Structure formats: structure tokens, C-alpha cells
């Protein structure tokens, strides 16, 4: 087999308050596609930053082709033959493909030569690119190609890819996989970070699983089932869902053919989303970020108006109504971005309580604000949801992520919504706060409200949702009851192989 391409020995990195990586050791061989698996917070991104030279480890070594490897910045890493395609692209929309690639290279050749190389290499690897096109006009999949070609043109021996398929359609995923396999055969190894278990099983020969900063398992994913891999990541046997049957309550919310063009020039537009929701039901909508979650929340909260009858609440068309009117009718929402969207960072919790609570808690009388009422409301939220804070007078930005999230979700739950929509409610939140939030959502549903839970966290959806639908490229799959749903099936739904017409690459 020969020596490994990259050997990690005892890598450790600590930040104030958290051990990101603890004594990590594993080998990455030549001609191998190696998966790095783990939940949010498992330490994958820190590890990868160490390998790419963005972060220095506190202790431990790395050997690249048998030689000590200690990059102190990405340029050094690139010079040693390590390339990385990040999850969030560093691209310039107003510039063309060739210019974008040139900007990301350390010593780019003259433009004409570069354009030629781009054409050649991109075609050779099945990811064709026209160097003269503006990046802003490219689809998400094509934009990723730019990032990949940028790396490939520097002849890496090791290519790191961070969640590469989160923005790809099924066909693009297949094309990407062919490219990666070709690269592997030609001598470039790939370190593939993802949580899409089916993909890893079909692409990778070797997988290292991280949990809480440590390596907990290595295996050949082709020999394991998706469920086994999931259990390795999470560390426990997955419980069957807690909710037994789908409630038979009345239909309270209906989306009919909801189509919405994204406001964001490069966001994902919603296409013919249709689903109905009953009282007491928790609908889990899964999907990796960038598939229309923000747009769906905006369409439901009222920040984005749509066709009158595309959103129907208790039989009444409300697509044209704004956030205030919808709150009055009992439809509340909690967006993903805590600071800046759900809450104003520099304002106190009292003011943030007023932000959404004004209507339902009757905090505005004759145009004048009832500050003591707002304060009391904030205090109630803080108390009920165990928000750790010196008081309601503190600015939102001073709270920890978990506490602020408890406040933001708690604020909506305490307004007694008829329908509550939450987007990534436990993202970046510690385990106990997450558990509290999930329990609160279940309690809300038990009391007759309907909940739409938009989340990237499959376990969360399995734990508390009654039904599950996948949001993929702005389209929503048909909902399936969670009971009896397997992880494999979910993975497939998220990967797009569902019982709907597959979406096309460009909108």
C-alpha cells in the first residue's frame, strides 16, 4: 500500500471554553476518497482548517508524504499540494469566471493562457466552464465548479471538500462524483466532509467519524448501512420517534402551489410548494441550507408577499398579508439568523420582546408603547425558558447563542400561536438548550398548535416531527409520516430521488 499521503498524529486544538480537536490521529492514503463524518460541533471544520493552514494546532504533527507538514497559511498549504473547496464560496459576482479563478491563484498565468487552461481542465473533468461568463449568472452548482477548477489548476495532491453537495442537484452530484473518482484514479486524494450518508456510502472507501472533537471510529462506509453510520456520529442507538400517530385535527394551514422568486439575487426560488398542516401536527421540513429555507420562512412570516391564495390560514387566503396581520391571525415565525433578523443585536431583550410581541401581547396602545408590559413579557419568557441573562435590560448580542435562541423561540411560543414556523431552531445551541426547545415545540403541538420545523438536523426531525418532507432546490417533496421512515429513505429524499420530477439545474 505504501506510505499514507497524509498522516495526522495527536492533533489537538483548544479554544477558550471548548476543546475543538482532541488527539486526532488517522491516515489518509494515496488514491483514496476519505470521508470525514460528524455532527455540528464535532470538530470537522477545525481539523480541516488545521490541514489547510488557517489554524495552528496546540499539539500534534502532520506528515505529508512522509515529510513534516506545518503550514502557517493557506498559500503554504497550496504550495505543498493541498487544495480546499470551502462550503461558502469566495466568489465575485460581477467578475467573470477567469477573473475569479485568477484572483484565487497565487501566481496566475496571463489571462489568455488561463482561459485556455480553464476550458481544457474543466472539460476534461466533466465540469465544463466558459471562462468569459459572469459568475453572478451561474447556478450554485456551476459556481462550485469555479471553486473546484480554481483548486485543480494548482495541481493538488490532496483536495479537501467541505459539504460539496449541499448546493447541487442530483445530476450535478453524479457529475461531481465522476470527477472525484477520476481525480482519485489520477493520483489526487480527496478528503470529503459531508453528513449525507448515502453519498458517502457510494463515493468513499474510507471514513473517519468525529464526535465531540475525538475520532470515534474509522471504517469502510461501503460495508456499513446509513443507520450504522448515523449511530456512529450520534453515539447512541437512534430512538424510534416519540409521537405515535399523526393527529386527526382540522387542517389549519395550507400552501397551494406557492411559488416565490427569491429576493436575494442568488437565492433559491420556491417552486409550486404545496402542503397542508393539521392542528397538533409537527411537520419537519428537511434539507441542507441553500435549498429555499429562508425563502419559505419569509413566505410564511409575511416578509415576502405571494399570491393571495397560495397561503391559506384556517380557510382564509393570507398570501398578500404582512407580518403584523399574520401575527394578529396567529401565524408566528422564528427565523434562522438570531442576530440581525430574529432579534436586533444592540437592543435589549425587552425591546426585542416588543419586536414581535407588540400585536399579540397588546403592548401598543394608541400608538404608545407599554414598556412595563413589554418588560413583563420579556421576564416571563426569560423565566419560562430558563434564559441565562442578568436581566431583560441586557442587549441581545451579549447573550450566548443558546440562550438567545431560547429567548427567540420562547418569545414566539408564549404568544400562543395557532401556527408556528421555526427555521433551524437548535442550530449552534448546546445540547440541554436544544432539548428544552424541542420539548417546548412538542408541548406546543400537544396543546393544539401546528408547527413547521425547518431543520438540517435529521435527528431532531425524527425525534419530534409527525411528518417529514424534503426541501430541495425550492421544491417540496410529498410529506411522509415519520413513523417507519428510515434514515436511508430520508437521505434519498434529501438527495432528490423522491417521487417527484427532478428539478433542473438553472431556474
Amino acid at each position, binding site marked *: 500500500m505504501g506510505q499514507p499521503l497524509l498522516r495526522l498524529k495527536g492533533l489537538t486544538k483548544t479554544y477558550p471554553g471548548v476543546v475543538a480537536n482532541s488527539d486526532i490521529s488517522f491516515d489518509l492514503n494515496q488514491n483514496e476518497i476519505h470521508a470525514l463524518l460528524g455532527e455540528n460541533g464535532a470538530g470537522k471544520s477545525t481539523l480541516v482548517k488545521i490541514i489547510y493552514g488557517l489554524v*495552528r494546532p496546540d499539539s500534534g504533527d502532520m506528515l505529508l508524504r512522509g515529510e513534516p507538514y506545518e503550514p502557517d497559511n493557506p498559500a503554504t498549504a497550496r504550495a505543498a499540494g493541498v487544495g480546499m473547496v470551502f462550503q461558502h464560496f469566495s466568489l465575485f459576482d460581477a467578475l467573470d469566471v477567469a477573473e475569479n479563478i485568477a484572483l484565487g491563484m497565487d501566481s496566475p498565468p496571463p489571462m489568455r493562457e488561463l482561459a485556455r487552461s480553464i476550458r481544457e481542465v474543466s472539460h476534461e473533468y466533466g465540469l465544463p466552464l466558459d471562462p468569459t461568463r459572469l459568475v453572478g449568472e451561474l447556478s450554485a452548482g456551476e459556481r462550485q465548479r469555479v471553486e473546484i477548477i480554481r483548486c485543480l489548476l494548482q495541481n493538488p495532491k490532496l483536495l479537501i471538500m467541505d459539504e460539496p453537495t449541499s448546493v447541487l442537484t442530483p445530476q450535478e452530484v453524479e457529475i461531481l462524483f465522476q470527477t472525484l473518482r477520476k481525480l482519485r484514479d489520477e493520483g489526487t486524494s480527496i478528503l470529503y466532509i459531508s453528513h449525507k450518508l448515502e453519498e458517502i456510502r457510494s463515493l468513499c472507501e474510507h471514513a473517519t467519524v468525529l464526535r465531540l472533537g475525538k475520532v470515534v471510529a474509522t471504517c469502510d462506509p461501503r460495508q456499513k448501512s446509513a443507520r450504522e453510520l448515523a449511530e456512529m456520529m450520534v453515539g447512541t442507538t437512534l430512538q424510534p420517534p416519540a409521537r405515535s400517530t399523526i393527529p386527526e385535527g382540522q387542517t389549519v394551514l395550507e400552501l397551494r402551489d406557492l411559488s416565490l422568486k427569491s429576493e436575494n439575487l442568488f437565492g433559491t426560488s420556491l417552486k409550486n410548494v404545496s402542503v397542508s398542516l393539521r392542528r397538533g401536527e409537527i411537520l419537519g421540513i428537511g434539507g441542507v441550507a441553500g435549498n429555499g429555507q429562508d425563502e419559505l420562512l419569509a413566505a410564511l*412570516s*409575511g*416578509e415576502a408577499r405571494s399570491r393571495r391564495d397560495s397561503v391559506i390560514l384556517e380557510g382564509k387566503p393570507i398570501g398578500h398579508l*404582512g*407580518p*403584523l396581520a399574520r*401575527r394578529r391571525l396567529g401565524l408566528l*415565525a422564528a*427565523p434562522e*439568523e438570531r442576530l*440581525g*433578523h*430574529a*432579534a*436586533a*443585536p*444592540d*437592543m435589549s431583550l425587552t*425591546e426585542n420582546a*416588543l*419586536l*414581535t410581541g*407588540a400585536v399579540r401581547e397588546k403592548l*401598543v396602545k394608541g*400608538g*404608545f*408603547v407599554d*414598556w412595563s408590559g413589554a418588560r413583563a413579557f420579556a421576564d416571563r419568557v426569560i423565566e419560562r425558558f430558563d434564559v441565562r441573562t442578568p436581566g431583560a435590560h*441586557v*442587549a441581545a*448580542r*451579549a447573550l450566548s447563542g443558546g440562550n438567545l435562541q431560547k429567548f427567540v423561540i420562547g418569545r414566539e411560543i408564549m404568544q400562543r400561536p395557532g401556527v408556528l414556523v421555526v427555521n433551524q431552531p437548535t442550530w449552534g445551541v448546546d445540547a440541554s438548550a436544544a432539548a428544552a426547545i424541542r420539548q417546548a415545540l412538542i408541548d406546543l403541538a400537544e396543546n393544539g398548535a401546528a408547527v413547521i420545523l425547518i431543520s438540517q438536523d435529521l435527528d431532531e426531525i425524527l425525534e419530534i416531527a409527525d411528518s417529514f418532507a424534503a426541501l430541495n432546490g425550492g421544491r417540496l417533496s410529498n410529506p411522509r409520516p415519520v413513523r417507519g421512515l428510515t434514515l436511508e429513505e430520508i437521505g434519498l429524499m434529501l438527495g432528490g430521488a423522491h417521487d417527484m420530477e427532478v428539478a433542473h439545474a438553472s431556474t
Partner: protein
Amino acid sequence: MLRLEKRPSPSTVWTIATPLLAVAFTMVAGGFLFAALGKDPFVAIKLIFFDPLFSEQYGAYSRPQLLIKAGPLILIAIGLSIGFRAGVWNIGAEGQYIVGALFGAGVALALFPTPGWYIFPLMIVAGALGGFLWAMIPAILKTRFNTNEILVSLLLVYVAEKLLAAMSLGLMRNPDIPGFPGSRNLRHYPSAHNAELIAGTGMHWGVAAAFIAVIFAYVLLHRHILGFQVQLAGQAPRAARFAGVAPAKLVVVCLGLSGALAGLAGMFEVSGPAGQVNIDFAVGYGFTAIIVAFLGRLHPVGIVLAGFLLALTFIGGELAQFILRLPSASIQVFQGMLLFFLLALDLLTNYRIRFSPAEAR
């Protein structure tokens, strides 16, 4: 290595200290400026800041001037501050001031010489309306066509100045005094005259209006939902939309309000201290008010203090001009420096300066 670290919440200490420090720095820098101009810096600073208030010799004349100058500054700045908080940049207050004056004076001149209690109130309405309408131009252009309100409101200042000249030399010219520009002096029209309310203090209806505006702004910002929405829109636009604030409405309200207040200031000025519509009527209150608004941290009480401070520099500057023959432009420089220092020091309210060692290994 110096590093900037964002504070968890804005520092109250520095919010108050920054304007004070900025004034102190300006005094020092100003002192150097005056020395460079060949004047004794200490005498100059004393003339500008202390003598107008406390001097035996000049105080009696200067003190009333304080209210006369501070009134319009405060009135305009209050209106501007609400817009600035929301991120709506009305830079054309000078133009709205002029148009308000023209509307107000226009009503008076049209009704001259008929006496009547209703004339002055009518002028007030006209003045506010004039400023409001002039500000509606950038407002509508922004909400309907997404045109930058800074440029539009500013260009309209120049248009307003030309309009002022046109009126002074044409339509509003005093027919009784041919050959000279300028309208009738409203001092001679009692029903329209904005007279001193308390003799010797400089207090006229415009000053009273300024104080009323301060109270109104305070209540609006702290107690009214609109005030909350204004602040929210300026701080976190996405959260404002989430909360249900309609951005177009906010733009119209902010520009309309500041335009109306500026127009009022203009009207009070033309019917009071200035007396007539003339080519040199506009002295730049609309621009100085911007400095007052920032110096006062966009806060009603701060604006009162800042208004008095800047009025002081105007009057003191006149004194220094008279006694030391200090050029009048130096006061403008002084005021510009004040804004500079304030902006520079503002950093400290939101960021801490840290010395950190270079990364180990």
C-alpha cells in the same frame, strides 16, 4: 499589535464622554489653527466660548443671540436626527429651510397689509408645508424609483437657493423700494412678525417651537411605536422587516418630518430675526444642523446641548471676527473639525482597543 474588539454592548460611559472629548480636542486643534493665523489662541478660545456668555462688555448683546441662533439649529437637528436614526439621510435641510421660508413669507406678503390673528398661524402651516413638500421630492423619488436621497436632497438645495434669488429679485420684491433686491421687511407687518416673546432674551416663537420639538422627539423616540420602528430600521433593517415595519412608510415619515421642521425653522427665521426674503437669507443652518445632530448623538437632550454649543461658536466667532479680526471662515473650519473628532472618537463607544501579542509559533 493593536486590535479592535467589538464590545458586547455599546459603552454608556463613552457615549457621553465622546462629545465632550471631541470638544476638548477641537479647542486644542482650533487653538493651533488660530496661532497659525497669527492670533493668540487663548484669547481666541476665550472669545469664542466664554465671553459671549460671561463677558461684562459683550454679554448683554451676545446672550440673546444665543437663543436666536440655537433655535433654528435645534429645530432642524431634531427632525434630522429621527431620519438619521432610521438610516434616512436628509442632507438637504438647507433647501427645505429656504422653501419653508418662501412659503411662509409668501403667505404674509400676499395678505399684506391686512391685519388678523389668523395670519401668523397660517404662515406656520405654510412654512411647515413648504419644507414638507420640498422633502417629499427625495422621499417619493426614493420610494418609487430607488433614487439616492442624499444626492437628490442636496441638489435641491442649490435649486432652492436659485429659487430664493429669483423670488428676492422678482416675484417677492418689495415694490415700494425699486432697484433694491429683497422683499418687504415683515417687521413692519405686525400680524406676520415673529417678535421677541420676552424682551432681551432672543426668545421668539421659533425658539419655543424648538423646545416643543425636543419634547415631542423625546416622547416619540422613547414612548411611541414609531420611534421604536425608526431605531429598529436603522440598527437592524432585516429585523425591522421581520417586525412588520414598512420601509417606504418610514422613509416618507422621516423625510416629511424633517422637511416640515426645517421649513418651520425657515419660516420663523424669515418672519423674525432675518425679517425679509433676500438673497443672503440662507446662512447654512441646514448644514450646521447636521453637525448638531451628530454632536448631540441623535438624542433630543444631546441636541439641545449641541445646539447651544454650536450657536456659541457662531456668536463667539463673530466676536472674534470683530475683535481679533479672525476670518469668518475659521469658524466653519472649527465646526468641521468638531465633527471630525467626534466621528473619530465614536469608535470607542463600540470597540475596545486591545494590545495582543503576535500569534505564537
